[in-house]
């Protein structure tokens, strides 16, 4: 393991839409910028795997901005700790990065919320965004029968994508009642691009049943998934399938923000109009400030980038657009609230903590997350509560408390003092990292 010290004016964590927009905006204002992302290539979740072949004009646009701007992106690097103020530690495969900066922009995105039901730990029961991510990175799906279930606009996007890749999408089961969706759809006239998107998706999904008021209650099979039992109101029926792609909307990745001491509001990072958090010189953009989709993430990213760079005029010019999209995000959030029946899905034997195999019956007797953790070790596995935390919050109302370093499992060698072998200022990095060949 070697150590490298990288210094920049502005450090952006996350190279999804918000991070790319922030990076570009900050660089445009003349600052030296470094983007760091844990995935193999830029794009976050929505543009995963598209760095070489963008699938949308918007992805192509932003990738091109980064590439042509020669803005350095460190991929495959996870932030694990803040050893001192103004410094973050990033762990790569064989390099430890000491990242020094004046201003920090957190664009750490979101992850799916999983909810337990009998059989959810069977192989081939996967996330909805999860299956999409796997297919984007090479998982063969052609001819496979897929049930997409859970909640949120992501389900439609996933179903459409999988279908386009040759999967046989049997149905989309959305737990939200139809009435709420109509209410959401009714408000879409304010957001023409979203209406168009919705229509397009409906077109792409012609022939695929979209059932509202509908959710999975059990997954079964020998050694792997073979069939799913769905409930729709009072009716239940069984569907034979190869994959159940099931996710219940998104949970913001706020672990780094919390480690840095940024205040949260209702579980999201609290920011002011300039996207600045409660901690000076730390900004946040995109899903961690509120789940709102790609348009909002791009706007927040740009505002954060300009604000961090000191270009307040440009930042402010985007306020109106961002605020419009914020309203859409709030509407979205209200449409897809989780119904209480979902709390009754797991039975006593259903596993809640997958890392340590802790079942519901072992947890029910406790009054707090801390107590449950100490007595059962629920949440003490490598996922550090990222999967089971949202579950116990939904089932029991427990608040998942402290965040300590490493905020992601890290090798001992990354945490011990090490002399840096290389110390580089980021304006020199452009030559090193812009070398990949691309055609946008």
């Amino acid at each position: 393991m070697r150590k490298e010290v990288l210094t920049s004016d502005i450090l952006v964590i996350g190279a999804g839409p918000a991070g790319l927009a922030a990076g570009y905006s900050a660089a445009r204002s003349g600052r030296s910028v470094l983007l760091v992302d844990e995935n193999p290539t830029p794009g976050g979740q929505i543009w995963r795997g598209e760095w070489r072949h963008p699938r949308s004009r918007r992805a192509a646009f932003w990738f091109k901005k980064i590439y042509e701007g020669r803005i350095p992106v460190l991929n495959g690097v996870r932030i694990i700790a803040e050893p001192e103020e103004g410094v973050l530690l990033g762990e790569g495969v064989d390099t430890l990065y000491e990242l020094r900066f004046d201003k920090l922009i957190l664009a750490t995105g979101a992850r799916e919320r999983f909810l337990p039901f009998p059989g959810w730990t069977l192989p081939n029961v996967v996330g909805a965004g999860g299956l999409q991510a796997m297919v984007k990175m090479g998982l063969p799906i052609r001819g496979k029968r897929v049930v997409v279930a859970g909640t949120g606009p992501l389900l439609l996007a996933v179903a459409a994508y999988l279908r386009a890749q040759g999967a046989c999408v049997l149905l989309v089961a959305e737990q939200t009642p139809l009435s709420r969706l109509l209410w959401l759809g009714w408000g879409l006239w304010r957001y023409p691009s979203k209406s168009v998107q919705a229509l397009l998706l409906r077109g792409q999904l012609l022939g695929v049943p979209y059932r509202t008021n509908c959710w999975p209650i059990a997954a079964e099979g020998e050694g792997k998934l073979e069939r799913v039992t769905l409930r729709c109101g009072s009716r239940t029926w069984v569907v034979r399938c190869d994959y159940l792609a099931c996710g219940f909307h998104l949970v913001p990745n706020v672990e780094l923000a919390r480690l840095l001491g940024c205040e949260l509001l209702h579980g999201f990072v609290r920011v002011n109009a300039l996207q600045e958090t409660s901690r000076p010189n730390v900004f946040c953009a995109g899903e961690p400030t509120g789940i709102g989709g790609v348009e909002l993430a791009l706007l927040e990213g740009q505002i954060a980038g300009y604000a961090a760079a000191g270009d307040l005029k440009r930042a402010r010019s985007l306020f109106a657009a961002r605020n419009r999209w914020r309203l859409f995000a709030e509407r979205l959030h209200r449409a897809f609230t989780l119904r209480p029946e979902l709390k009754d899905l797991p039975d006593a034997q259903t596993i809640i903590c997958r890392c340590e195999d802790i079942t519901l019956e072992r947890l029910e007797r406790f009054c707090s997350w801390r107590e449950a953790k100490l007595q059962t070790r629920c949440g003490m596995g490598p996922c550090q509560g990222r999967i089971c935390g949202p579950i116990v919050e939904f089932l029991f109302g427990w608040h998942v408390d402290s965040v300590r370093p490493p905020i992601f499992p890290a090798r001992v060698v990354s945490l011990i003092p090490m002399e840096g072998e290389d110390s580089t200022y980021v304006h020199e990095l452009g030559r090193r990292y812009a070398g990949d060949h691309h055609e946008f």
Partner: protein
Amino acid sequence: MAERVTVTINGVRVEVPAHVTVLAALIMHGIVTFRKSVRGEMRGPLCGIGVCFECRVTINGQHHSRSCQVLCQEGMDVRTE
């Protein structure tokens, strides 16, 4: 750039497209369960983005590597439980 790379899965050399994850390579070759849980249940991947740790395998001798986050490279050695 190569179109395909050769990796070894549980001792067997196979060819896979370049730029796919180890996870995809395993599924392509019929491996659906990657690791044994604490209670001994066979598990496969869940989140696809590197946070759930269900997709762990041993890559080039490194235990607990998340196969969904690692791209296949020429000569890689992959072992599942």
